[in-house]
């Protein structure tokens, strides 16, 4: 646009009145000249004027075209259309509010779920060039494991032999450290890491330095790096912290570095100590470490995988016994972290998108009804020279205005919804999940806002553009309902079908969740309190110290008033912790470590089964006679017993654990107990064995106490007992067993809740939609109904007519919906537990529910129709 035309447009905008006057003058001049000429030709002044006007044609139309021609038209007209739209919308505020709220809820729900998906799936991880980071796992396909944690010697070989990584590092997951100092000891989550791990992540320390290679060795590892928040909170952000000694789990360590603000790794760790392992301490058959690597520039994941396949094959050749069938798997770090959530999030996005679609349909319906009522207005404007496009544009602008206001409100709602959503997640989310609003979320909201505006605006706009001006003006606004009726019916059918799909999905999710919740996990979760105590190895270095502590502690807990029974376990069922070991059975062929079955290996103190309500099926429980020097004993679960001794008692048989070639001592089976869901409520793949803590004196146990009333009531007493035994000993993860179980299925619970909320919303919208259409039908056909009644139709006939029409639409919608649901629910198969994606009960129940609800929505307008007084109806025009 050059300067001159810009100035002209500017003038057109700012001097509108002046230009309008000029246009008037110009055209008046023309008319006057015509009139003059006509008079000269001998007409009377009046005839002359009429002839001139006739010759001129539509003055207003000409003016409109001249305005368009001015070129400022689009901008000026748009502004005028907008202000006109605002006036129109404010005038019918009830309509406007309903539409804006409907859209706000739809857009808000979508934005919330999108922010959620964005934070997990789309946002890059908070490390420089995070797309080059890879997780390195081992695989043991012969044992059916396509991902297994890493052994230390294998890692050393990888590091030396690979050609594709800048470096590989290891961490030991998240562990708990007791930080003692002034006041109560506190538990901090931290991680043992190899030297070089921060360099792989490319995160430099805020203060001090990272670990040196020398510090990654036993006896030289008395150093620690602090996280920023920990440094701020527990050390007051002391700038001279570097070089100071702190006591962690009873071991003094020198602070060598502080990591930058916001940095946590892995998951929620905020304190790091050297891994400091040797191949002797952690052999090739000990798996339990997590590998992470950074790919060299230009190396693809496939190339890295190929290189590591070679390295693994070489290691297997050199260590045929320990590494039989072991491979390596490379995955991108982001994929590895986010993979678990991907499917559920995509399905949720689909579901919430459907809700928005239903909202759009509803709004389109309202817009249609309104457009019908406004036909006369449009016809009048068309007659005054507004082009068809101008009217369509006017409608689109109204739609977009509604959408934009709805979108803005929806965006605000999404912040609230996201807050609620995050509160519904009981676990501490890994720090890399960031659900803040970013440009992507804003873009998404803007995109769906404009899209919805176009979707629900297009229908009435298109319909109006087909209206025949003459017919409308002649008919006095009653209008032909043909096209309108059909398109509104189509919208209702769409709504019913979409709601049915959503309701079926929600029904399946809820059924699945209920079935999951009622799974018999093999123990009684009522009134059980759990609390974890992790003894520092530095202080409790001998087995006697550890078993002694726990023996006394359990004894003290047992004596707390209100406690019926107490015991302790190394791995609490469904708490996420587990310990797998290889199993060898006496009398069966000895398998290599690569082929031996893995079993769940749980260390408990006597009385565990009674406390937890796990039925003892044969033999006996552990007792105080099962001591370190005594015969090694074990208790197996019923699945293992039935597997190996289907026709005889397992009691008295002998088994041993660990790599078969290590020849660990045999354990005699003294009891058989009911199987417990240890790892997941959904399934328990591993057979289980239990061992007495006296014989396997590990340093961390979870105390379980069965109480007579609310288990949380005894919490202070339990805390006190720990303090009595060791005032520096923290206690953590105090929770009821019910909470532990509920927490283990928070994802299915959250999904079921979200599905139910979304489907419920869609149902309500659909019912409003049907009601609106039927009420509109009754209103526009009052005249016809009056005629029918005057001709002898009874109230009952009229009622049947209206309800019949509504139900016909409902049935069509339900049938289409069932078809859609059968096609779509298959996608959520993996989210369902013990529930078929085409569960006929759910399909039938939902169809009936929806039909009944639709009937009720038709009932009110039908009743109104049945009460029509023919006399009034016929006069009603």
């Amino acid at each position, binding site marked *: 646009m050059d300067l001159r035309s810009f100035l002209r447009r500017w003038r057109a905008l700012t001097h509108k009145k002046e230009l309008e006057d000029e246009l008037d003058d110009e055209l008046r001049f023309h008319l006057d000249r015509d009139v003059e000429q006509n008079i000269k030709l001998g007409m009377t002044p009046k005839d002359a004027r009429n002839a001139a006007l006739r010759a001129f044609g539509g003055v207003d139309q000409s003016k409109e075209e001249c305005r368009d*021609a001015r070129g400022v038209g689009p901008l000026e007209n748009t502004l005028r259309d907008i202000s006109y739209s605002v006036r129109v919308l404010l005038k019918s505020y009830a309509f406007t509010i309903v539409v804006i709220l409907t859209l706000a809820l739809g857009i808000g729900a979508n934005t919330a779920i999108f922010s959620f998906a964005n934070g997990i799936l789309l946002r890059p991880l908070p490390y420089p060039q995070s797309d080059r980071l890879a997780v390195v796992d081992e695989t043991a396909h012969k044992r059916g494991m396509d991902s297994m944690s890493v052994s230390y010697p294998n890692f050393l070989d990888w590091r030396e032999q690979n050609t594709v990584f800048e470096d590989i590092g290891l961490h030991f997951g998240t562990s708990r450290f007791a930080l003692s100092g002034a006041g109560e000891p506190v538990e901090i989550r931290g991680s043992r890491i190899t030297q070089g791990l921060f360099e792989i992540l490319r995160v430099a320390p805020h203060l001090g330095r990272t670990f040196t290679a020398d510090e990654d060795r036993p006896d030289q590892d008395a150093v620690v790096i602090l996280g920023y928040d920990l440094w701020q909170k527990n050390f007051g952000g002391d700038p001279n912290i570097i070089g100071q000694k702190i006591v962690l789990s009873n071991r003094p360590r020198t602070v060598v570095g502080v990591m930058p603000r916001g940095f946590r790794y892995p998951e929620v760790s905020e304190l790091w100590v050297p891994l400091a392992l040797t191949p002797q301490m952690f052999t090739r058959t000990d798996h339990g470490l997590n590998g992470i690597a950074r790919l060299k520039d230009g190396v693809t994941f496939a190339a890295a995988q190929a290189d590591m396949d070679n390295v693994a094959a070489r290691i297997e050749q050199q260590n045929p016994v320990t590494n039989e069938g072991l491979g390596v798997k490379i995955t991108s770090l982001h994929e590895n972290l986010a993979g678990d959530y991907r499917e559920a999030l995509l399905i949720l996005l689909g579901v919430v998108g459907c809700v928005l679609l239903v909202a759009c349909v509803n709004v389109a319906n309202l817009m249609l009804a309104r457009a019908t009522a406004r036909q006369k207005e449009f016809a009048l404007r068309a007659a005054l020279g507004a082009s068809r496009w101008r009217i369509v544009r006017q409608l689109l602008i109204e739609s977009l205005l509604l959408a934009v206001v709805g979108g803005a409100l929806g965006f605000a709602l999404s912040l609230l919804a996201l807050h609620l959503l995050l509160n519904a997640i009981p676990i501490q989310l890994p720090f890399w999940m960031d659900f803040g609003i970013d440009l992507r979320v804003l873009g998404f909201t803007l995109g769906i806002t404009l899209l919805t505006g176009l979707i629900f605006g297009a229908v009435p706009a298109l319909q109006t553009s087909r209206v025949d001006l003459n017919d409308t003006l002649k008919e006095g606004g009653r209008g032909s309902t043909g096209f309108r009726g059909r398109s509104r019916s189509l919208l209702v059918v769409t709504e019913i079908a979409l709601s049915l799909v959503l309701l079926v999905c929600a029904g399946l999710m809820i059924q699945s969740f209920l079935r999951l919740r009622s799974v018999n996990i093999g123990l009684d979760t009522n009134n059980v309190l759990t609390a974890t105590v992790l003894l520092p190895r530095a202080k409790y270095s001998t087995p006697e110290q550890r078993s002694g502590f726990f023996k006394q502690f359990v004894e003290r807990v047992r004596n707390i008033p209100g406690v019926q029974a107490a015991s302790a376990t190394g791995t609490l069922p469904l708490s996420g912790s587990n310990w797998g070991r290889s199993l060898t059975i006496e009398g069966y062929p000895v398998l290599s470590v690569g082929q031996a079955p893995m079993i769940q290996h749980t260390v408990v103190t006597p009385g565990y089964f009674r406390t937890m309500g796990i039925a003892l099926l044969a033999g006996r429980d552990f007792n105080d006679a099962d001591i370190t020097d005594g015969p090694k004993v074990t208790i197996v679960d019923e699945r293992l017993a039935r597997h190996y001794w289907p026709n005889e008692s397992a009691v008295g048989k002998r088994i041993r654990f660990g790599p078969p070639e290590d020849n660990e001592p045999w354990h005699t089976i003294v009891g058989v107990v009911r199987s417990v869901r240890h790892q997941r409520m959904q399934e328990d793949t591993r057979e289980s064995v239990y061992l007495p803590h006296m014989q396997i004196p590990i340093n961390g146990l979870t105390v379980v106490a069965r109480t007579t009333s609310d288990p949380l009531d005894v919490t202070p007493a339990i805390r006190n007992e720990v303090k009595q035994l060791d005032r520096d000993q923290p206690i953590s993860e105090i929770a009821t067993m019910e909470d532990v179980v509920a927490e283990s299925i928070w994802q299915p619970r959250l999904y079921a809740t979200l599905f139910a909320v979304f489907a419920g919303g869609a149902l309500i919208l659909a019912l409003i939609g049907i009601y609106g259409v039927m009420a509109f039908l009754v209103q526009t056909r009052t005249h016809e109904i009056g005629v029918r009644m005057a001709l002898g139709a009874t109230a009952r006939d009229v009622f049947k007519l209206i309800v019949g029409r509504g139900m016909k639409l409902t049935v069509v919608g339900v049938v289409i919906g069932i078809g859609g649901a059968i096609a779509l629910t298959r996608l959520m198969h993996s989210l369902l537990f013990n529930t078929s994606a085409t569960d006929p009960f759910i399909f039938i129940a939902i169809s009936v529910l929806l039909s009944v609800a639709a009937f009720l929505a038709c009932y009110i307008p039908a009743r109104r129709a049945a009460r029509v007084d023919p006399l009034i109806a016929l006069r009603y025009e």
Partner: protein
Amino acid sequence: MTKQTADLFKQGTLELLILRLLSSGSLNGWDIMQRIQLVSGEVLSVTPGALYPALHRLEARGLISALWRQSDNNRKAKFYGLTARGRKQLETQRKEWERFSGAVDLIMRDA
């Protein structure tokens, strides 16, 4: 004006005629209408409904400019005149028109 003549007045043709008429001096809308009728021997005619939007379009494109001044009957009228750009545009369009009508002529004569 009959429908057949109106169809001849495609927008571009009308604009070309206006430019041509204005090339010999500025005129107001009413004059332009009279001229078109007069010059074409009453074969072509144009309605104000078509003429004024065309004038405003040409003005918006900077091909003609307008000035209010006294007309013959002593009333103020809006007079349009060619701008430099309008003159250039007239030249190009005239050449195109000549080429086009020359070609049509040839075909008509040969056929």
